[in-house]
């Protein structure tokens, strides 16, 4: 079919999306880059160019963002591994025809559909009121800790809540993945006398690798962007030990009036996620090619 050019229809279908894209994504991103090379405080009428000074400050005098990076990276590493593991275990357990599986799935999945602020405060209540109460009754060490009071325990608390929130997502994706494993593959393995565990490790998991990759990078990018959980659970404390990158940018811009510095941090934040996603695309593509070749 020969297509006639139809510029009017093009405007009709892509006009508003284009405007949204330009004004919400493109121009703001360029402005972020632009302001990161100035000394603007966000309010004054005039500002000057300072070159890469803001970037230099991040690595020399204003090192809070570096600390935030280290916190976020450590948190992402721990959380991603454990969330994906837990999610896969849950999916393996719940993808069979077990009775009552829907209600179990719901229990594991529910935290994922609630917002970080709400989840954070639910846990803040448990940790501030529930745990000390248990500590007054039972002498277990685990209940004697002021969970949000020391840097390392606050780290663990945020990690736990984050895993609690993310595992349900991985579970849902992996259930779909397991269901998609061709029946003849598992059937012939069963006929050969393979145990369910053997089938899981030797057939299902290798077959589902692309899905696992999706999950790993999803959790990774979610935890790298972590913001609301920190705000609700610890608000960055104690002693600023749990400030994530997104929270640091927010504070520098809105609480500390370091507007241009915050823009430089925003640009670095973007570059980090850009690289992460780039790696993801490369990994998925290599896998696909390998899969196609074999």
């Amino acid at each position, binding site marked *: 079919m020969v297509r006639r050019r139809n510029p009017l229809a093009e405007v009709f279908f892509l006009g508003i999306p284009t405007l949204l894209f330009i004004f919400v994504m*493109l121009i*703001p991103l360029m402005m972020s880059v632009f302001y990161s090379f100035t000394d603007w405080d966000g309010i004054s009428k005039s500002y000057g160019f300072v070159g890469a000074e803001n970037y230099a400050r991040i690595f020399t005098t204003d090192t809070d963002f570096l600390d935030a990076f280290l916190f976020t990276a450590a948190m992402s590493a721990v959380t991603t591994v454990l969330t994906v593991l837990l999610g896969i275990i849950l999916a393996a357990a719940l993808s069979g025809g077990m009775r009552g599986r829907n209600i179990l799935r719901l229990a594991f999945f529910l935290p994922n559909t609630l917002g970080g602020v709400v989840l954070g405060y639910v*846990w803040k209540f448990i940790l501030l*009121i529930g745990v000390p*109460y248990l500590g007054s009754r039972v002498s277990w060490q685990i209940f004697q800790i002021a969970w949000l009071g020391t840097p390392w325990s606050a780290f663990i608390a945020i990690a736990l809540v984050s895993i609690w929130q993310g595992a349900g997502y991985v579970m849902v994706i992996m259930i779909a993945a397991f269901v998609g494993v061709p029946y003849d593959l598992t059937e012939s393995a069963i006929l050969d006398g393979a145990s369910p565990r053997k089938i899981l490790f030797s057939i299902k998991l290798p077959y589902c690798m692309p899905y696992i990759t999706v999950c790993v990078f999803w959790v990774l990018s979610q935890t790298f962007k972590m913001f609301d959980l920190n705000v609700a659970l610890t608000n960055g404390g104690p002693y600023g030990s749990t400030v994530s990158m997104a929270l640091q940018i927010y504070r520098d811009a809105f609480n500390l009036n370091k507007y241009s510095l915050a823009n430089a941090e925003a640009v670095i934040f973007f570059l980090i996620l850009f690289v992460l996603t780039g790696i993801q695309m490369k990994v998925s593509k290599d896998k696909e090619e390998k899969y196609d070749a074999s």
Partner: protein
Amino acid sequence: MMRHDTVFSWVGKAVLIIAAILFFSPFVIVIIDSVKTQGEVIENPFSLPLELHFGNFPHAWESIKLGSAMANTAVTTAFGSLLLVYLSASISFWCVRHPTRYSRIFEKALLCSVLIPFSSIMLPVVKLLSMADLTGTLYGGIIAYCGMGMAFSYFVMRGAMKSLPKELEEAAMIDGCTIYRTFFSIIFPLTVPTAVSVLILEAFWIWNDYNIAVILLNSRTTKTIQVAIHALFAQTYSQWDIALPALVISMMPIIVMNILLQKKIFAGMTAGAIKG
């Protein structure tokens, strides 16, 4: 062998059920404690209430103006997610079925934009919206949600658009259907199952979002439920007989949706992950 497996599966089942109870218990504790008095909560957060103080709920509703926060969240969520469905259908219709040189460029740019986290563009977005006099209104928030959610929605819709046979549209054209009518009466209705997935995913995202809301919808009249809950806890979180009912109220719509739409939600998440 057989025996061993059965024992293992019983132990496995028990562990699974205990794990599910542990996963769910924070919600149960909060819900139970929400109908207790402040004194009762502090004294023993794990006890059942002596009396059911349902009065906590209207009290919480009044004292932090949850009604207006709920209304703001509902309006933003409804408009944001419906617009995203329309926008993503419209983009995918053009990019998949009528690709032009411009549509290919736009598609690439849009796909790249999923890499941009909101935190790295939020400062200029605030500037731009205030220049357009849109800060402190729900419009500003809705525009930001549409801009930020467009790429992901498009990802999901593209799959559905690709799977429709070409002949449909050709037949419509031959019958004298305009391209607009083809889109609205023939193509869009066929993508409805996927559109529902997009709607659910984006509605959950907007309802739960704090990152965009705290920056663009933080004024007294536009506060969303997440912002209101945060403000409540930041000021007086030791007043549990207000804070806990407020938390429960904010969670209820999501919990109910989960129970009603579990299958649809799972399908949506899967579609989002695999096609995206």
